[in-house]
Every structure is written in structure tokens, then in C-alpha cells.
């Protein structure tokens, strides 16, 4: 698997937004524009769109507890080979390893709990840092 060392990626852009689902669309639009300009495959584009949506929603709803007074910081670097996206909220953090498997029979009919699973399924790397207040997503263009 390719290195996800951010220092080896293209230059990072940074966007700081209020913690609302509406504001979350701005970094999503920007990142997806870069993805398109770099000629990412349809498969990779779909994956990034999905994982990014999940990461932003998690930051707004779970990380920042739907508190619009809090902020979300999004840093991203996209080049034709790899996209690195880092989303940081101002919440208290969480233990990502404790999130139950949503495919368990006793959890399959629950309406929530699939965001992290989808991020992991669609990204080449998913890393949680800073007690879970930051997630780093890496997708290779192939």
C-alpha cells in the first residue's frame, strides 16, 4: 500500500468551516473539483465522495454534537496519484475501535452506525488521530 505520509503528497489546502451539514458542502465541492481535474477514475471518485460525506457528517453530528458554534478543519491534498483528506472536529473524541460492527445480525436493522465501516471499505487508508477527533482518509487513483 502506498505511503500516506502527507509530506509526500501535493500541497495541502485548508478549509475551516462552522460545524453544519450545509457548510460541510463547501470542502466537499472543492475536493471533488480537484478530484475531477486530476482525472480520477469513476470508481475512485465515487469512493471519495461517499467516504468524505460520511466523515463530514460524523464530524458535524457525532464529533461536534450538532453544535454550529464549533468548527471543522479540513485539510486536503490531491494529485493525480493520491488524495489525502484530513477532517478534524472540536469534539471530545471517541474510541474508533469500540464502534460495533453494523453487519452483526443484532445491529443490521439499526438505522445508524455504518459511516466508519463505509469509510474503511472505500478508502485505501483510514486513520484516526487525536483521540478520534481527526480522521485521515487516503485514496489512490486506480
Amino acid at each position, binding site marked *: 500500500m502506498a505511503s500516506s505520509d502527507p509530506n509526500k503528497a501535493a500541497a495541502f489546502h485548508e478549509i475551516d468551516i462552522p460545524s453544519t451539514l450545509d457548510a460541510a458542502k463547501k470542502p466537499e465541492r472543492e475536493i471533488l473539483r480537484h478530484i475531477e481535474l486530476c482525472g480520477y477514475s469513476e*470508481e475512485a471518485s465515487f469512493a471519495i*465522495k461517499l467516504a468524505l*460525506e*460520511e466523515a463530514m*457528517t460524523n464530524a458535524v453530528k457525532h464529533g461536534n454534537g450538532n453544535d454550529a458554534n464549533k468548527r471543522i478543519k479540513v485539510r486536503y491534498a490531491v494529485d493525480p496519484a493520491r488524495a489525502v483528506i484530513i477532517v478534524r472536529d472540536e469534539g471530545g473524541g471517541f474510541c474508533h475501535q469500540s464502534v460495533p460492527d*453494523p453487519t452483526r445480525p443484532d445491529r443490521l436493522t439499526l*438505522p445508524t452506525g*455504518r459511516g466508519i465501516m463505509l469509510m474503511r471499505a472505500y478508502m485505501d487508508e483510514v486513520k484516526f488521530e487525536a483521540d478520534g477527533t481527526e480522521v485521515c482518509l487516503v485514496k489512490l487513483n486506480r
Partner: protein
Amino acid sequence: MPGADPHINVTKMNDVNVIEFADRKILDELSISEIGDQLKSVAQSAPSVRMLLNFQNVEHLSSAALGMLITLDKLVKEASGKLVLCNINPQIYEVFKITRLNKLFAIHDSTEAALGSF
């Protein structure tokens, strides 16, 4: 829901409510909430309701959309109705497979096959 734009188009075929999504992307929370409300209205429109969701226009959806569908499915089943999905493109179907929701929902390749399952 008063004031909300229609996100679904409903037609009746053989007593089945055939529903097409007007949105290509079922992603944002507000849209999902409005879609959910509109689908719930259909689900509660008759006892033992039969609903077919046609995903032919859908290119993206989020886990929140999956949650909305799960809630709808429960509602329909509790009322002894039936809900089936059809025309899900391979990328979206993969999302259902990864989350094992392809085991929860009855999913068909075509509208004809879905209608035939009622």
C-alpha cells in the same frame, strides 16, 4: 410534507406503488429527511401497502439514506406490507453488499422482476 419539493414520483401499477427518486444523489440530511417523510406518507396510505423503489436515477447515497430505507422497511413490514427495491446500479449495490443490507432488502435487477415478486 407541506412546502417540501417532491423528491419522489409515485405511479400505481397493479396495486403496487412504483416510486422513482427525482434526485440523483441521496446524500444530504435535509433531502433524506424529506424523502423519508414522503415515502412514509405512501407507506401509510393503505393497509398492507406494496411499494417498489426504483433506483434507476440514483448515483450516490449515504449511510443516512440507508438508515432511512431501514426505517421505511420496518414501517412497511409492521403494517404487513411489502417493500422491494430495483434498478440499483452496481456501485450503489456494492454499498448494500458491504453493509449486508442486500440480505435485508428484496432487491431486483429490473422493474419487471420487482413487480413480479408481489
